[in-house]
């Protein structure tokens, strides 16, 4: 298979398979979580918990004054990830094609800036995971996989955009394939938090609210 066939495969069947696995897997996971319901409250229910639930969704998304370096790096990379995915013009074309909506993209130099920043931030978080003993113990193989499949699309995308590597067509194919890997990993690893983070935060917040604990 040459680089052109690889690109055609990645843009065609590869993308279709990855989409199916991602959407199928994520839908199952979300519905399963929702259908678990709540345990019966043994104590008197203090409030509906809605307000506390929503509050925690916001609160846990804001930085906490702990280990500011690690937190900054995490923020940078999450914001960078969203910016690069949703505002790089070729990506917006992808979303326009799939969803029929177009929200305008940002100039390449801004995307480039966020990409470099995100790559640096991700490397920092990896190093921290290795050198901080408590983080190291808590990190499982699946966490490293999650890190890797998120990291590779940044690198391949950066290389393709800057015409680095052996050949642009090949780099573009590798970039798309690496994104497909990320799509497949979404329902299978902790990366599911991309869609479940709000549900879990809401659940925790509302449970606390119902029991009268300050969220």
């Amino acid at each position: 298979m040459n680089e052109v066939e690889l690109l055609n495969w990645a843009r065609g069947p590869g993308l279709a398979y990855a989409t199916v696995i991602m959407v199928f897997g994520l839908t199952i996971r979300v519905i399963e979580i929702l259908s678990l319901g709540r345990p019966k409250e043994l104590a008197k229910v203090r409030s509906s918990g809605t307000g506390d639930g929503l509050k925690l969704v916001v609160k846990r998304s804001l930085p906490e004054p702990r280990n500011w370096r690690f937190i900054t790096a995490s923020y940078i990379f999450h914001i960078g990830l969203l910016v690069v995915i949703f505002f790089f013009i070729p990506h917006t074309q992808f979303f326009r094609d799939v969803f029929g909506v177009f929200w305008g993209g940002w100039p390449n130099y801004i995307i480039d800036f966020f990409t470099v920043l995100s790559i640096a931030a991700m490397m920092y978080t990896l190093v921290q995971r290795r050198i901080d003993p408590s983080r190291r113990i808590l990190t499982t193989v699946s966490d490293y996989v999650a890190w890797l499949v998120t990291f590779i699309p940044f690198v391949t995308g950066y290389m393709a955009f800057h015409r680095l590597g052996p050949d642009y067509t090949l780099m573009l194919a590798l970039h798309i394939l690496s994104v497909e890997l990320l799509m497949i990993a979404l329902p299978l690893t902790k990366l599911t938090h991309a869609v479940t983070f709000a549900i879990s935060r809401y659940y925790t917040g509302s449970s606390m609210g119902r029991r009268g604990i300050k969220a």
Partner: protein
Amino acid sequence: MTPEENNETTETLGQNLIGNGVSRRTFLKFCSTVASAMALPPTAATAMAETLSKATRQSVIWLSFQECTGCTESITRSHKPTLESLIFDFVSLDYHHTLQAASGDAAEHAREEAQKAHKGKYILIVDGAIPVKDDGVYSTIAGITNLQMLKDVAADAAAIVSVGSCAAFGGLPKADPNPTGAVAVSDIIKDKPIINIPGCPPIPVVMTGVLAHVLTFGIPELDSHGRPVAFFGESIHDRCYRRPFYDRGLFAKAFDDEGARKGWCLFEVGCKGPTTHNACATVKWNNGTSFPIQSGHGCIGCSEPDFWDAGSFYKALSTGSMNPGEWATDALLAGAAVGVASGILNKASKSKAEKNHKPVTLEDMGGKNE
């Protein structure tokens, strides 16, 4: 008269050009155009002129298989005699079924004669793909399958030039679902040097330039797809004059919007320039007049393998070619069904567990009342 007895093949090219009223000046101009298009050193033009004018005309057999004749049209059709048309003075085109006067048996006879007379020395030019399914019955000439004819003629050729994307990569005949099992020349012939000059059609000066190079300096440097690096080494996007707009994020969104009128980048309306290697942006078409992007249409990627199967010409390169949205909807419904089923199962096993639940006593845990 056999080709050997034919004057045209024994007189030198220089003599032949003079005989045809081509001035040395025109000839030199051709050589320097080719040399500069191929980024050869300045001295190469003179060397090329010297070698070519002393050479006898090269015997060429041109075989057309599953093709549309667009490649021949490209190389021959011009309003006035062009530099490109000079190539027909360089070669003795012993067989080309669109251009030759002979037909029927006489035509096939001419091919066999040329094959015999110039055994091991002629250049074989092929345009069109070769169907191989069902023993190649889907395309025949004089009762001979393309597959058989290619094998026969290639056996005694010095080199093969695959002109056009069909001969080079399979092209349109090979596009999905490829009903005739069409393949490229290089899929069949493995023991001869093959130069691919893809394009649908290829740029005339690229075809003639490569032929002139073969006649003077031999086979040029080729890339991994067998294309001459001099013409196919860079992508359209690398040399596109609209590139600054791409970098600044200024795109035409439709063929008649303001961006289109301002000449912004055509990526969003489907330009495949970033992944296409060809010389359109530098050599251009119609004697250097223009090229597709300059006339407002995105590059369709015609000089790359399998470009017909790379999705719509009018959708951005960064979109999926198999409509991922549709697949996503089906996957969502299937996922929802499985999710609900598994939710019901979970509930059932939960209530069963609750029903079977017995309170644990201290004795159960191995403790003793003392």
